[in-house]
């Protein structure tokens, strides 16, 4: 087995920051330190950087700059969208529809709202994680005030039928939020075109080669939503707090780069991914989780029977391969991944899950390397497993 190689296949967890992005950030960590709210010149440089980034985000999403609000990341964006809408529309109803495979940044705010008198429907998804728009429509009630369905799932990569869902939501006059944290850079969004029924959309820079701790919420003009973080007059008084100027500038650059040539980029990643998938599927007792086709170009999620994910992950790490797992052992919780459970993967199989997510850090050699190492590691662990009978 090879050594001293680092193969990063966990792009869904976070990405490296592109060189140009770091360079865009640096001036705001060094000389241009002024507070964007200040009136004098050195504050205005910060202000300009913030507005330039806002324009870049708007352009990438097909939105207007006035509809972009900066936050501290995808989690805050999701919290704001869900709770901000729920509280703003409380008088109109108390029913929210979401799906059980959302990120915890959507699910836990929903759970929290349940303790505050809201009703949440966790609409079941199919074995691939897909929402059925007709079922969604049937779940809408008189008092439904929000629908939140993610653009693409972070664990199994399944891409939801956002346009159809948006259409249903729009027809019933229910505001529609989508967590697009995993979507940016993987396919193009167009909030004035095919995504025109989306009212709110969350994103996070560290998933598209930008820095951590910075994100945004798109809020379509006219959407009813409360502020969530109150204070100073930043972000048109909708999201208070001194702006993370360096982070915002970096995110602007990052989204520009990530959306410059989406099709070609996605194609390249998909090609590598498909070769890896084919190779891994040759390992016996292995199944692919998520949809065979409707999935993020870089995403692979397998279950290897008879072995446990944290062990697999750590052995791969020892071989220089960075991956992720939905095993309960890895999280310190008793239950394996809520996503794998929701699509019906039995717990003992979910325990042996491995997520590999490809991205710009990868090359065809990485694929070769994983195809060399992974089968050996799986075999080694199976040899230790009391469940495995060769």
């Amino acid at each position, binding site marked *: 087995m090879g050594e001293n190689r680092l193969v990063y296949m966990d792009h869904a967890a976070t990405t490296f920051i592109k060189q140009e992005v770091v360079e865009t950030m640096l001036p705001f960590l060094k000389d241009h330190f002024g507070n964007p709210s200040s009136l004098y010149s050195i504050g205005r440089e910060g202000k300009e950087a913030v507005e330039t980034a806002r324009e870049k985000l708007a352009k990438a999403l097909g939105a207007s700059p006035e509809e972009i609000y900066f936050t501290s990341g995808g989690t805050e964006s999701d919290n704001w969208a869900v709770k901000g809408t729920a509280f703003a529309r409380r008088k109109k109803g108390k029913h929210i529809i979401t799906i059980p495979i959302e990120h915890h940044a959507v699910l836990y705010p929903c759970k929290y709202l349940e303790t505050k008198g809201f009703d949440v429907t966790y609409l079941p998804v199919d074995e691939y994680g897909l929402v059925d728009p007709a079922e969604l429509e049937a779940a809408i009630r008189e008092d439904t005030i929000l629908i939140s369905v993610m653009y693409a799932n972070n664990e199994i990569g399944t891409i939801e039928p956002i346009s159809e869902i948006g259409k249903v939501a729009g027809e019933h006059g229910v505001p529609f939020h989508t967590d697009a944290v995993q979507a940016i850079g993987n396919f193009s969004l167009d909030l004035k075109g095919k995504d025109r029924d989306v009212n709110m959309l969350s994103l996070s820079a560290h998933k598209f080669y930008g820095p951590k701790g910075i994100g945004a919420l798109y809020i379509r003009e006219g959407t009813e939503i409360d502020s969530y973080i109150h204070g100073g007059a930043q972000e048109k008084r909708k999201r208070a707090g001194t702006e993370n100027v360096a982070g915002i500038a970096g995110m602007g650059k990052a989204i520009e780069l990530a959306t410059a040539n989406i099709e070609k980029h996605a194609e390249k990643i998909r090609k590598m991914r498909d070769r890896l998938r084919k190779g891994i599927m040759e390992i016996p007792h292995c199944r692919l989780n998520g949809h065979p086709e409707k999935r993020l170009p870089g995403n692979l999620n397998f279950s290897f029977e008879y072995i*446990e994910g944290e*062990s697999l992950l750590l052995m791969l790490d020892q071989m220089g391969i960075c991956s992720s797992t939905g095993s309960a052992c890895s999280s310190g919780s008793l239950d*394996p991944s809520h996503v794998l459970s929701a699509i019906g993967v039995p717990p003992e199989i979910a325990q042996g899950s491995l997520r590999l997510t490809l991205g710009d850090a990868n090359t065809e050699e990485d694929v070769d390397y994983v195809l060399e190492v992974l089968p050996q590691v799986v075999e080694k662990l199976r040899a*230790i497993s*009391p*469940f495995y009978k060769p």
Partner: protein
Amino acid sequence: MYNKKVMDHFMNPRNVGEIENADGIGEAGNPHGDQMKIFLKIRDNRIEDVKFKTFGCAAAIASSSMATEMIKGKTLEEAWELTDEAVAEALEGLPPGKLECSVVSREATHRAINDYRKKQGLEPLEEKT
């Protein structure tokens, strides 16, 4: 998060395998779905050989490896006294939340010893709590 000793026992676990016609076999699991199976070869009340198979996290595998190392060559009474803490200590510590992963090793060992005792027509030993 795991120290070197743990990683060593995880990457190169000692005593992996099964013993055909083992004198005592014990199995234990935890609510995570983790599972350990232990096989003892016993001669003159002493553990002459031991093998295990474990499904679980690195801590579980390393604990299994260490526990089997520690009971090998011991009398059954000595082996019975092996505590989770002793295993964790021999591993130079386990991360918080992973201490319980060594519990299955102790439980499986106890069951294997009692399995042996039962076959010998002896009373099973009792867990102290």
